[in-house]
Every structure is written in structure tokens, then in C-alpha cells.
């Protein structure tokens, strides 16, 4: 029943980003609730005001309330914000699909593609729920900085203007500035793709390369991202915005990012399985590289940086070898592949 909609926003996913978004909404005097999968985590958040696994040492707002009963929570908000890692995304979406109604707005902030199927998250939401008003939130939003009370910006893309305005209303006046857009495909692909470049930037740091090399990597990475996106029908301008270059700048500059760490350790000669085994959180760049690599092959797209990262992750290339491969590539006109589409 509509009368049961006593919340403004339900945030789904108790990772660091979900917790951060819920915190900002509460700060912005919205009635927001956090749904988490594990009951123990809900209890920890409600009683000790901590999320020790994903935000160790951070004191959460006392009014941040978490629940783990999806059926009861899902009906309570007109706006649902889903922040669940790609690996669990379909499962949560399917469960949500049992409870959601067609008037509810469903926005996700998950960066990555589904393994094997290479589906974008909005496609999964479409397949697993009856929701039509679907949107994606993406941008340079490092959770640690958000939790520290700093300002940030993001893009909210949806084909439905109602989606954009509802999300903008929820965050209006907050520290998170939400810009609107329509390019769902571009926004989702940018968010997924940037993890690959972040990984490559980590490798560059690990090799002891400086700012010139990193800028080269980011810029050429952006160009690959745009080519990949445009081949899927994205608007090229999206990649010049918050979800594109914006997110790349933040992710590649932050040595704390998980993808960056994977890259750095690869450069030091560690093997992928060992690196992944030692990490508590998901580094989305790893599966995304496999997905983008095979998709680019199907489309006949040349993406040298993706190629090199794939080599390091899955084909036992050393970091030095990958760098050498990249440096040996012929140089053409800088933006030819985008300009003369």
C-alpha cells in the first residue's frame, strides 16, 4: 500500500559506499534506512554504530538504522538505492523483485559488469524486477572521503526524468551534488571500465613510474573507455563528465582503492590468486577486465591497455612485459578513433 511508504529512501547494501550514501541522506534530513544482507551486520550497525568489516574504525551516526528483512523494507520507500557488489547483484535484485512495485524508482550505484553474461546492472534490474523507472548513480565517490564529511559530485543517469528528479530531491542541498543525465549505457560502462584503468594505474605506481606516465595512462585509458562505450551506443560526452574522467581521476589518484592495490602488487610480481585471497573486499577491475576484453574482441575493437591488463591478470604477463607491449604500439592521430567514427 502506498500509505506504508513511510521512508524517503531505502539503501540496499551495507558496504562502505552504501553506508556512506545512507549517512549523507540522513544528514540531509531524509528518512533513510539501510538494508544489509547479514543480520549480524545489521545488529552491529544498530547497537555498536559500527561497520567494522567495510568501514573499520569509523563511528556511524546513531540514527543510521539497518535492517535485514527485505520483504518488510522494500515496500516502505518510493526510492530504492541499490549498492551491492556485482557478484551478489542478480541475487539481491531477484529477491527484491518479489516485493517491488511498478511505481517505485530503482537506482543502482554498482560499478561493474556481470561475470560471463557481461550484463550491465540496469539490464539485470530489468530482468529480475518489474521496475521500469531505473537509473544509475556514478562518479568519483571514494567512500572514505564521503564518510569523512567531504563534498563530492556524481551523475544520475536515467531514461526517466522522474528518476533523476527524485534522486536529486533526495540529495538536494547535501554534500553530494547529483547531476542529471540520460546516457545509462555510457554511465554504466564508464563506471565498470574505470576499474581496469585504476588497476593499470596501480601497476604503473608499482613500477615506480611518475605523474607523466600516469597521466598518459589515464588519458589513453579514457580514450579506450570512450571507444568501448560509443561502440555500445553511449554518448561520447558522458566520458568527459563525472562518471568518466571524473571517476578516473579520483580512482587513479587514490592508492587506497582496491583495484590500485591489485595493480601495485601485480607489479611487484605477486600472483593474482594470492592477491585476491588476501583481500576482504572485491576488486571489480579483475572480473571487469575479462568481460571487457572478450566483448571488445567480439566487436573487433582495439583496446591496448585492456589487452595489457588482461595479459597480466590472466596470461602471466609480467608488468614489465605489459609496459613494453604498450610502448611498442604505433602512435597515430590522437583522437582519430573517436573523431572519425
Amino acid at each position, binding site marked *: 500500500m*502506498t*500509505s506504508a511508504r513511510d521512508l524517503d529512501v531505502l539503501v540496499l547494501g551495507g558496504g562502505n559506499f552504501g553506508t556512506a550514501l545512507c549517512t549523507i541522506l540522513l544528514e540531509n534530513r531524509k528518512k533513510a534506512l539501510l538494508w544489509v544482507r547479514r543480520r549480524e551486520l545489521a545488529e552491529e550497525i544498530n547497537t555498536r554504530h559500527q561497520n567494522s568489516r567495510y568501514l573499520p574504525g569509523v563511528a556511524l551516526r546513531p540514527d543510521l538504522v539497518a535492517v535485514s528483512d527485505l520483504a518488510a523494507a522494500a515496500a516502505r520507500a518510493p526510492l530504492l538505492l541499490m549498492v551491492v557488489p556485482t557478484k551478489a547483484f542478480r541475487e539481491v535484485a*531477484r529477491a527484491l*523483485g*518479489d516485493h517491488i*512495485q*511498478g*511505481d*517505485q524508482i530503482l537506482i543502482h550505484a554498482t560499478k561493474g559488469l556481470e561475470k560471463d553474461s557481461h550484463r550491465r546492472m540496469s539490464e539485470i534490474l*530489468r*530482468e*529480475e*524486477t*518489474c521496475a*521500469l*523507472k531505473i537509473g544509475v548513480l556514478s562518479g568519483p565517490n571514494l567512500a572514505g572521503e564521503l564518510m569523512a564529511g567531504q563534498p563530492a559530485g556524481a551523475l544520475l543517469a536515467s*531514461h*526517466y*526524468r*522522474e528518476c533523476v528528479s527524485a534522486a536529486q530531491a533526495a540529495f538536494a542541498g547535501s554534500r553530494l551534488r547529483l547531476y542529471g543525465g540520460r546516457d545509462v549505457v555510457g554511465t554504466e560502462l564508464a563506471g565498470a571500465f574505470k576499474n581496469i584503468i585504476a588497476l593499470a594505474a596501480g601497476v604503473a605506481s608499482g613500477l615506480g613510474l611518475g605523474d607523466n606516465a600516469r597521466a598518459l595512462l589515464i588519458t589513453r585509458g579514457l580514450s579506450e573507455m570512450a571507444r568501448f562505450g560509443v561502440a555500445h551506443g553511449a554518448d561520447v560526452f558522458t566520458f568527459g563528465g563525472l562518471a568518466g574522467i571524473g571517476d578516473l581521476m579520483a580512482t587513479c589518484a587514490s592508492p587506497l582503492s582496491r583495484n590500485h592495490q591489485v595493480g601495485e602488487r601485480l607489479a611487484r610480481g605477486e600472483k593474482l590468486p594470492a592477491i585476491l585471497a588476501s583481500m576482504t573486499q572485491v576488486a571489480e577491475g579483475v572480473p571487469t577486465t575479462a568481460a571487457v576484453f572478450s566483448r571488445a574482441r567480439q566487436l573487433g575493437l582495439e583496446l591496448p591497455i585492456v589487452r595489457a591488463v588482461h595479459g597480466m591478470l590472466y596470461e602471466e604477463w609480467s608488468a614489465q612485459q605489459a609496459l613494453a607491449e604498450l610502448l611498442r604500439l604505433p602512435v597515430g592521430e590522437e583522437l582519430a578513433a573517436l573523431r572519425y567514427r
Partner: protein
Amino acid sequence: MRPEDKERVLAECAQRVFDRYAHDPQRLESAIFDTIYEERRRLEGERRSQRTAAESALYDRIYAEAAAAAPERRRELLRELIGRFADEVVGHFDPRVYALATRAVPLGLNVLLNSLSPLRLAGLLPGGVSRLEDQLTIAGEIDAFRRMVERGTTIVVSTHCSNLDSVLLGYALHRLGLPPYVYGAGLNLFSNRLIGFFMHHLGAYKVDRRKKAWLYKEVLKTYAGCTIEAGYHNMFFPGGTRSRSGAVESRLKLGLLGMGLDAYIRNLQANRPRPDVFIVPVTLNYQLVLEAETLIEDHLKEAGKSRYIIEDDEFSKPRRVLDFVQRLFSLNSRISMVVGRPLDVFGNTVDDEGRSLDRRGRTVDRRRYVQRDGAVTFDAQRDEEYTRELAASVVESFRRNTVLQSTQVVSRVAFEWLREQNPEQDLYRLLRTGGKHSSIPLPQAYARLSRAISALRTMESAGRLRLEDTIKDRDVVAVMSDALAHLAGYHRRPALLRRGDRLFHEDRNLILYYQNRLEGIPLPREAAA
């Protein structure tokens, strides 16, 4: 349409369009002057006649008056323009003739054919013309379709490749025991007096595609919407026109398609007892297409934009229609119609009870899609996107329910071979020159065809597409000879011809046309020969 509804629907349509533009001075001005501008352009392009002279004079008068008029007078002029369009669209509809014609539907095809060439037909076809009716098979979700007709108002949307389509559809709907459908038929269908007469009285309204004025299109759309709201089942071709390339429609016109949602919302707001509107996608499948030669030629000439309206095609030549029908009989060729799963106006499938289902098969309360804070609302931007969702579902249904024919599959094999042999030639050059080799060795063609058939059968058993019986059940030789008999039989030139142990591509445009039906279907790549 019931007589009491006719005037009401017409008045409602005119009033609705009027209200949309009459109250804002700027909209009022552009409604009048844009219309006159477009209409004058149309008249300039037409052959001069008494009718065009009268129309020109009318527009001159309205222009002169409107230019100097106060808003009140302008509103009257707008009403006049809308009224003219509306009258023209609905035409001289006579309920009595309509009642009669409804009973006469089974004769529809005969009437069509006889009116094209009564004497010839009677003499040439032994079993009489009624045999054409036997050539049409109807399959798919027929029961679900019938149930939706009982539960709400249905909109049949069909693939479109021939002018015979509307006649066949009208007949098929009758054979299914369904009430007559309201549909918009192009002027060319009215040009034959007798067909025009029956078209009108079978619920067809007139669509003049030469009229580009948006006010006119608005009247058309609104009229369709008003009839849906009044509970009349509608039918139209969402591709807008016959597929020029031969491919299954992949881009639909959203304006008319969106009228289902519009009517649904209005029904809910007015608390009407049967508010639901269901979309029923239908495919019509031919081994041979009557107008194939003209259509593909038009497609190749500037990719379909050159002549939106074709008036001098095979359909307008009685002799060709006759040839075509004869060919159908002699080859025992069937035309099949497949009814897809009914959809709601948001593109969700519906179950037999008319409940909407999500893609996991869970029931969806569809009213919620148009509710905001509990109230049913219009939201132009949102509704446009909903209609896009619907269009995507319709396209998907068209794909799955297109029955691939031997002519199309064999053409695909022949055309792929041609392209592989001539990788350096672009499409247009290849079509012109035919490339290096004019023929395919038959064993090679068989081998390729048999691989294509097995791939298609796999896709068929996965429910991704449909195959006509020959491809489904018979061996590769039977498929080939069925296709060749068709391809060599009807068209001016045979598309593909067997001489000795080779297949010669005689009319590459036609081969392209027929193979285009398989567009988007991934067949295994052949190793380079």
C-alpha cells in the same frame, strides 16, 4: 462502430486536439500556420486538379484571415482545420453498411481479388477464389488473444511487407471469430473504389501519408486513441510502412503505439469498467512477397527514404496480383500468421487472465506504473519511455514469431557465399556487378544450407525463432527445391536459378531482399572457401 459512438468519438477527437492548442497563443499560431505551410507544400507537389485548386483556395483564405485575426477568430479557424482533417480521416462512415459488411467479411478476399480482375480470376482458378483462404494458416497464442478480446480492448500490431497484409489480417481476425478491428489504411488502399468502400466499412479510417502537417498526425493519433477508449479493438502496422529491405521491423513508430497507454490512463482516471488495453503482436509470413522487387529497389535507392509512398507498385497492377495468387496455388505455398503472446501497454507479457507478468513470471500490479503518490497521472516523458519499452517487447515478439521460409534461408546462403567470394566489394557494387563468380557449385550450396538449417533448428527448439514446415521436417534437398521453385517462379526474373550442377544468382536485389528476413540471426560463419 456503433452509430451512437461515431459522432461522439469524432467530436471527442476534434475537441481534444483543439484543447491542446487553442489556449496558448503561440501554440495556436503555430498550429494554424505550420499546418498551412505543410499543406501548401504538399499541394505544390501534387498534380493540379479541381480538388487541389479548391484546397489551395481554402488554405489561402484561412491564411489571410488568420494573419489579421484576433485570438477568438483564430480559434475558430483552428477548429475548422481540425474538423476538416477529422472528417476526412473518419470518412463517410455509414453504420448500416457497416453492419452488412461485417457479415460480408468472409467474402473480403474474394471481393478484393475479384474487384481487381473478376473475369480472369473466375476463369483461371479452378476451385474458385475461396481457395486463397485455405492458404492462410493461423498459429500461436490464439486462445490468449481471444481471452484478451473479452477482457479488454486489444491493439493488434503486425509486421508489414505487403499491401495484402491488411486484407489478410482483416480476414484472419474474422476467421478467429473476433469482432472487426478499427484500422488506419493508406490512401492507396482506397484508390480501388470497391476495396476502398469495404475498407471504410470494415472499420478502416483513412490515412493520407502525403499530409505531413503535425496537426493532421495529431488528429489521426487522437482518433485512434478515442476509439480504443471507446472499447473498439484497433489494428495497425507499427513499422509505419511496408518493410522496404525485407527485414523484420526493428524500429517502430512510437506515436500511435503510445495511444494504448494513453487510453489506459484515461480509462483508469475515468474509472471505466474495462480499463485494460492489451497489445497483440502478430507476424505475417510469406514465401514470396508480392511487391518484393519494388520494395527492395526503393530500399536500395537511398535506403528507403526516397519514396515513402509508393503508388505504382505490383499491388496496383491487377495482372501482378493475379500472377502472385496463381503462384501461391500452384506451389501450394502457405501464408502464415502467428499470434504472439499478448502484452500490456508497458511491454510486459500477460497471462491468460490478463494479469501482467514480470520477466520472472511474477504477477505485476500494472496500475502502479502510472500512479504517483497513489493517484493515476499522465507524465509525457515517462509515458514516452514506457512506450519505448513496449516497442522493444513488440520487436522481440516479432523476432521470435517470424516464420522463416525456405526462400529466405536459401537466399541467405547464396548471398553470404557471394559476399565471401568478393570481400573487396561493397554491397552496392556487389549487387551491380555480381562479383567474380556468377554461380555457386551445388554441392557447396547444399553443404552450407544444411549447416544453416541445423543451426536454425537449434534456435527453433530454444524458442528463439520459428521455421516453416519444410525447413523443420524435410531434408536439405527438399528445402532447396522448394525455395528454387518459389524464387524462380513468380518474379519478373528468377532470383536464383539452377542450371546443371550450379546455382546462378540472377537477381541479386531479390536475393538480398529475401535474405534480409534473417537479419540479426547469428548463423555460424563459414570457413573461407
